[in-house]
């Protein structure tokens, strides 16, 4: 450990800590900066995080300085403040100050840091500024404004060191230097939009989000990406019931500061035209009261015999569905196992494109292949309950369901008018991931909580509530909190963990005893 004094405050940090991070701890906020990023190599070029270390003749940048025991550091004295102000002024002299039409406005490093460290009188006229390319499309998701760029090189370092794809560079030199992709090269890797996140100014913006919303109008909810088994922690930015963008939430144990472009676009189906908004039977919309009656009728006619789960469901939903099946002596399976597969990469995207296959495993629900599942459906005489995941996307399963629907009830709790909805005798509109709260278990076995961002479509209901109704049991949980309490001993037997208060970085049950993971931070 190293003891140091920062702005008169004594702190102790582990050896090998960057002075930048030590200053953040001591100050309760970061030093001004553009180029420093905890998940990228040090560049040291923006020159904003200058601090005075006693005993050193010159100011030094904190990002490239390691703490030493006994260091006495000043981050807010007159000399440092003056340097901060002057360096910031340098960043802004050629900046176009086109904030009114800039998507970054409201979350911009230049704006924010000017308010805190700048506040000088502008000395450069617009006509004297260096002109560079504006609104240049450099890839399927990213658009570049070179005039707004402060050349912090974060995007270049990201493409070189994180994805290793190296599409971007800083070309030319002096104040003619500019960020761009190499001639003939597109910024077209599956992580390209991270460059938008790490761009501290409005130089790289998202084509998807461009001119959609002023950022200060957005509300944020903490989510977990449902796009694959990695379970990247995300922030769902939404307003007025609409999701505008997903951004990664930093979780060093899972996704670092990144997420993939596929994941970013996964909010689109939430607003799809073919969302189910009301319970339906034979093409007729029903009220929930009538739908409840329809379920009762179906189960009275033919008992519940088969419950088919999907790895798209939350852990709570899986648990409750299993409970329902147990109570009604039905068989519970998941599948078809072939669905939700794709090609993975070495970074974040997993070949398993579902968020909660590990959840099924944790609850001991086996996955059936399409052939097995079709067989089971075919040999069922009773009512079949399908929960999410569109199992009929598989043709064999679809055929089996069509046949089953001719002889008994096929109830589908789904979100879209998909193949499964078309097979079902009764469809009940559930909630998509962003419309409900729950827990996903990622491929590491990490339990991660996601929260509701937007209201459900139409008359849609959270799946667990639908299940509670079907269960028709007085003992059924009345809240998500109660449900989690109920399931705790099944999910995390013999531990003190509280499913209602999962750590920020998630919880890996196996590593509970060692205490090495899942600490709140």
């Amino acid at each position, binding site marked *: 450990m190293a003891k140091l004094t920062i702005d008169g405050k004594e702190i102790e940090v582990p050896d090998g800590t960057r002075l930048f991070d030590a200053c953040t701890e001591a100050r309760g906020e970061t030093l001004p900066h553009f180029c420093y990023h905890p998940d990228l190599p040090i560049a040291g070029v923006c020159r904003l995080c200058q601090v005075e270390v006693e005993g050193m003749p010159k100011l030094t940048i904190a990002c490239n300085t390691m703490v030493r025991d006994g260091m006495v550091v000043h981050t807010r004295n007159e000399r440092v403040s003056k340097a901060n102000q002057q360096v910031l002024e340098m960043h802004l002299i050629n900046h176009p100050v086109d904030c009114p039409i800039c998507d970054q406005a409201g979350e911009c490093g230049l704006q924010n840091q000017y308010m805190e460290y700048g506040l000088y009188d502008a000395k450069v006229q617009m006509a004297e500024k260096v002109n560079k390319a504006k609104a240049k499309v450099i890839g399927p998701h990213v658009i570049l404004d070179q005039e707004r760029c402060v050349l912090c090189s974060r995007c270049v370092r990201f493409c070189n060191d994180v994805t290793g794809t190296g599409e*971007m*560079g800083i070309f030319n030199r002096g104040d003619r230097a500019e960020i761009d992709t190499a*001639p003939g090269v597109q910024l077209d890797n599956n992580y390209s939009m991270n460059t938008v996140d790490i761009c501290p100014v409005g130089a790289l913006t998202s084509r998807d989000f461009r001119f959609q919303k002023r950022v200060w109008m957005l509300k944020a909810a903490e989510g977990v990406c449902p796009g694959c088994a990695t379970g990247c922690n995300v922030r769902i930015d939404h307003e007025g019931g609409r999701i505008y963008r997903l951004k990664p939430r930093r979780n060093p144990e899972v996704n670092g500061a990144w997420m993939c472009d596929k994941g970013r676009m996964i909010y689109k189906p939430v607003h799809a035209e073919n969302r189910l908004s009301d319970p339906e039977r034979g093409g007729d919309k029903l009220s929930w009261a009538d739908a409840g009656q329809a379920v009762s009728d179906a189960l009275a006619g033919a008992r519940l015999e088969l419950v088919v789960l999907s790895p798209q469901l939350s852990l709570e939903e899986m648990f409750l569905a299993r409970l329902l099946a147990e109570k009604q002596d039905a068989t519970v399976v998941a599948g078809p196992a072939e669905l939700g597969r794709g090609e993975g990469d070495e970074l974040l995207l997993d070949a398993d494109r579902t968020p909660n296959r590990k959840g099924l495993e944790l609850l001991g629900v086996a996955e059936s292949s399409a052939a097995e599942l079709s067989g089971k459906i075919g040999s069922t005489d009773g009512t079949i309950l399908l929960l999410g995941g569109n199992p009929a996307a598989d043709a064999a399963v679809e055929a089996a369901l069509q046949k089953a629907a001719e002889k008994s009830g096929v109830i589908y709790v789904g979100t879209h008018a998909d193949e499964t909805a078309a097979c079902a005798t009764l469809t009940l509109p559930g909630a998509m991931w962003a419309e409900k709260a729950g827990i996903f278990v990622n491929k590491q076995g990490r339990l991660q909580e996601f929260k509701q961002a937007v209201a459900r479509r139409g008359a849609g209901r959270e799946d667990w509530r639908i299940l509670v109704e079907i269960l028709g049991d007085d003992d059924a949980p009345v809240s998500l909190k109660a449900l989690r309490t109920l399931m705790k001993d099944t999910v995390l037997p013999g531990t003190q963990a509280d499913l209602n208060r999962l750590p920020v970085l998630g919880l890996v049950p196996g590593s509970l005893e060692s205490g090495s993971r899942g600490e709140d931070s």
Partner: protein
Amino acid sequence: MNKPVEGNTQVGLSAETLARIDALVEQYPTKASALMPSIWAIHDELGYVPPAGVDALVEKLEVTRARVHEVLSFFTMYRTEPQAENVLQVCHNISCHIMGARNIIAHMEKKLGIRLGETTPDGKFALEGAECLGACGHGPCLQRGKHLYEYLTTEKVDDLLDNLRKGEVPRADTDRELED
């Protein structure tokens, strides 16, 4: 120029140049470290680096296209467009300036009918300003290819331009081969 190698770009590299790049890759400790001399090898053949040259560098040196272009755009001597027959770079830095470089430049502009930074319509001459060429005690000076013409006067410049126009290259002040 020798036969271009396979490829759909217009200007290709000769087998000799490609072999030179291979040899440089052997000589330098890493493939990427052979980038500067490999660019020079392409320059030696063509006077600039065409897209096919970038392709060859990317392939043989296993560096990204962005890195090649970063380097190409960083150094003033590397070019990515075909160059004039005679690129004349006149030092306009302080020592040559004191010794009258601006008069030399003005004289050349008048004589060639172009401004600094331009190329004559016939493609024979390009006139460029250059930062210090390391001939400070011998100024004013200009560079053409590997050589410097020093102690420039308007008469010396006239003589140089007249000869070059005729396709003759006068002996440069730094050309000391006869002394060998």
